[in-house]
């Protein structure tokens, strides 16, 4: 009586010398620089690669057609956006400089506007006269004299 594991392993025992050779080759190539506990950048890179691989495997690859469709839609949106924006810029760039008549007319309009609404500078506010309180007797004398 054997377990499935025993059967499976026993079937492939013959390949063990080849596996030993592979193991020895891999371990033989190891040197301390390669296998020592890596520094923070190496750990971060390794972690980042692991995460991105998981992200690719679990999130993107299973629904790759949907992601590709979304990417295509975004590309179309960008193309449409840029194709609408460019003509405006080109038109702005291509506008001819205003003619002297137009400048003259504009200056005339400015002048007319200035005449209608007066000078632009706000009038300086007249300082209010200081109001000193007077004694009531003095005020009554003023009234009587008037």
């Amino acid at each position, binding site marked *: 009586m*054997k*377990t*499935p594991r025993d059967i*499976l*392993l026993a079937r492939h025992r013959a390949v063990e010398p080849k596996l030993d050779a592979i193991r020895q080759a891999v371990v033989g190539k190891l040197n301390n620089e390669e*296998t020592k506990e890596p520094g923070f950048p190496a750990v971060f890179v*390794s972690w980042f690669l692991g995460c991105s691989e998981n992200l690719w*495997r679990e999130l993107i690859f299973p629904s790759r057609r949907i992601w590709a469709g979304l990417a295509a839609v975004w590309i179309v949106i960008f193309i449409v956006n840029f194709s609408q924006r460019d003509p405006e810029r080109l038109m702005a760039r291509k506008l001819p400089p205003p003619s002297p008549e137009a400048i003259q007319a504009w200056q005339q309009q400015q002048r007319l506007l200035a005449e209608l609404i007066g000078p632009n500078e706000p009038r300086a506010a007249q300082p209010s006269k200081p109001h000193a309180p007077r004694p009531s007797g003095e005020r009554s004398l003023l009234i009587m004299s008037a």
Partner: protein
Amino acid sequence: MNLFSPRAFHWMKMPAVAANEHLPVHQAREGIPEAWDTLFRRYQLPLYVYVFELVHHEQTSLDVVQETFIAAVRHLGSLRDNAKFGSWLFGIAHQKCIQHWRRQGREEIPSDELGELPDEPENSPDELLIQSEQEAEFMNLLNRLPLPQRSVLLLHFVEDFSLEEIARITGTPVGTVKSRLYYAKAALRELVKGET
């Protein structure tokens, strides 16, 4: 003689893989070649068995095992839990198999639509005991299973990985693994019945 008589498969409890193994993963992190040698020696044959039973080609399987070892040395820093070294290593090998199939223009392991599962306690892989006369037939039955079910069953048989570990190795949800394992075992029983 009927190889698939009811006596062919006996169900009993027995530990499949040595429990509480103390693997020198910590020492491997420190760059000790002997530690790597111990780790690889422990996993080289189970890893090869798993890969071979998926790809059915000796040289390819050896190449995948070698690539897995090299990748393990390079990326050990990404392993968080030392106790998960085995499942992590099998996960690398599984990915290498998928890469191999992609290179050959074959789709990755096809998904299988499986129905609802009846509530059943998780069995040990060594509840199944096979008489020596039935070994060839057992292998034949195993290879007739669909690839996703075979993959899950191999991981269960070879290393007695938990459902969560198998899910991590194969990159599939735990529920899918559970149903694949259930249906693989059921298919194995059914094939046995059919052969009798």
